[in-house]
């Protein structure tokens, strides 16, 4: 596997982002800087607008403000390429779709009705990086939560995105799966030139692995290093003092 060192020169800026549905202002005044080689976790209570923020970044919902992707070396602006990992996909158990089909449907040009050895090997190699190569012929509906998530990750990083956007991707995954997932994130930060934005509920993992944490409730109510954010009043108001106790601030690090 070729190693790409994150250059640290790419920066994604969200400037005064706002989203409104009709009269209802769902998000406003979101200002964020995200750097490649770093993982930014977005946390907040249910209905705080986390998913809406993700949809705005994806261009699914109209937003005000600006998303800029800048190369700090020469100040040029570039098109932002996003690798997105959704919460779940619409597949039921008996859907006749193999992992190869899924991968190829989203990333390949060759119709999935034709199988070429070359494409097959290519997909297999991409799955290999996430240790799921042996699942290539398995129907997607029969995968476990953790397996599916790895396949989706492999798809997301396949054509070298600048931003990896994960929307609560670890639902239905056990503790071992969670550890493996966050270790994979560490690995991606080190080997790929990309920034990671992760919407998450798992505060202890966020505390342990995220470089930056953004607490949102319609707008950014706290931001910074995990340790700083977890000690703010805003954080304690949302998650209670118990949450801080649970994660044992300062002992996990």
């Amino acid at each position: 596997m070729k190693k790409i060192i994150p250059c640290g020169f790419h920066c994604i800026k969200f400037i005064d982002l706002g989203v409104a549905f009709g009269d209802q202002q769902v998000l406003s005044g979101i200002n964020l800087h995200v750097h490649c080689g770093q993982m930014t976790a977005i946390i907040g209570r249910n209905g705080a607008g986390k998913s809406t923020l993700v949809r705005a970044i994806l261009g699914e919902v109209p937003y005000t403000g600006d998303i800029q992707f800048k190369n700090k070396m020469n100040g040029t602006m570039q098109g932002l390429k996003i690798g997105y990992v959704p919460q779940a996909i619409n597949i039921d158990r008996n859907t006749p779709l193999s992992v190869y089909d899924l991968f190829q449907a989203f990333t390949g040009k060759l119709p999935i009705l034709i199988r070429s050895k070359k494409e097959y090997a290519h997909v297999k190699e991409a799955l290999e990086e996430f240790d799921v190569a042996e699942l290539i012929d398995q129907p997607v509906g029969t995968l476990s939560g953790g397996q599916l998530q790895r396949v989706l990750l492999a798809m997301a990083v396949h054509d070298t995105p600048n931003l990896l956007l994960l929307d609560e991707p670890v639902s239905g995954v056990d503790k071992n799966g969670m550890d493996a997932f966050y270790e994979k994130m560490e690995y991606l930060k080190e080997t790929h030139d990309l920034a990671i934005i992760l919407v998450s509920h798992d505060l202890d993992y966020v505390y342990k692995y995220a470089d930056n944490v953004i607490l949102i409730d319609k707008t950014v109510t706290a931001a910074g290093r995990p340790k700083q954010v977890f000690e703010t009043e805003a954080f304690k108001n949302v998650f209670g003092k118990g949450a801080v106790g649970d994660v044992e601030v300062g002992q996990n690090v």
Partner: protein
Amino acid sequence: MFNEMFSYTFMIRATIAILLISPLFGMVGTMIVQKKMAYFSDALGHSALTGIAAGVIMGIGNTTISMIIFGICFALLLNYISRKGLSSSDTLISVFASCATALGLAILSRGGSFSNYSAILVGDILSITFNEIIQLIVLFAVILLFWCISINRLTAISVHATLAKSRSISVRVMENAFAVLIALLVMLSIKWVGILLINALLILPAASSRNISENFREYTYFSIIFSIFSGVVGLFVSYFTDMATGPMIVIVASVIYFATYVYGKDR
């Protein structure tokens, strides 16, 4: 006995027509089932009546053209209202389909003349002409080309529209194109298959194939094979038993469905 059957040119034409239509039904049906659009294609089939009625009112002699134009507009309208998501889409489609069907029936029954049009309800593949076979050949080529270009993107959209969009697949364009394609297929084959049965032919082969396939290639190829098989066998059986072709094809397709269901259950 086959010699005698093929001594009739109408049987030769009918066989060719079946061999052209049925693989298309098998192929397009896979995506209709995958995208849970069975209601949509059913509504389109019923709207054929309205298309004919529109043609009659406007004095267009060739009702196939008015059916196609109406079908395309209706398909795009259905897509538009489903996307707005004002109400659940099966309810909306049902409302619009009933409305269109009633309108068509009302107009065509004016002066007690509906019996002139009742053939379209069950269809009659034996009456197909040489020119209409040429139409089907063109349709066959168009759909096959579209399929090769779009199958990946259509599949991606059926799995997760937002994810597809994030990979710069234009979801709306693809969905509209697919809707227009279904409209073309339905309107150009409805005279031979019949309004009452067309959806069965779209859904049954794909549903049967789904019972036994594990990937998309198997799904598509089995569906095409089942569709051709039921078409040809249905035609021949209907010839020897002197019963209508459309229903016979659906009966064969249903038998295949139940067989694959039983076979695939233990999988």
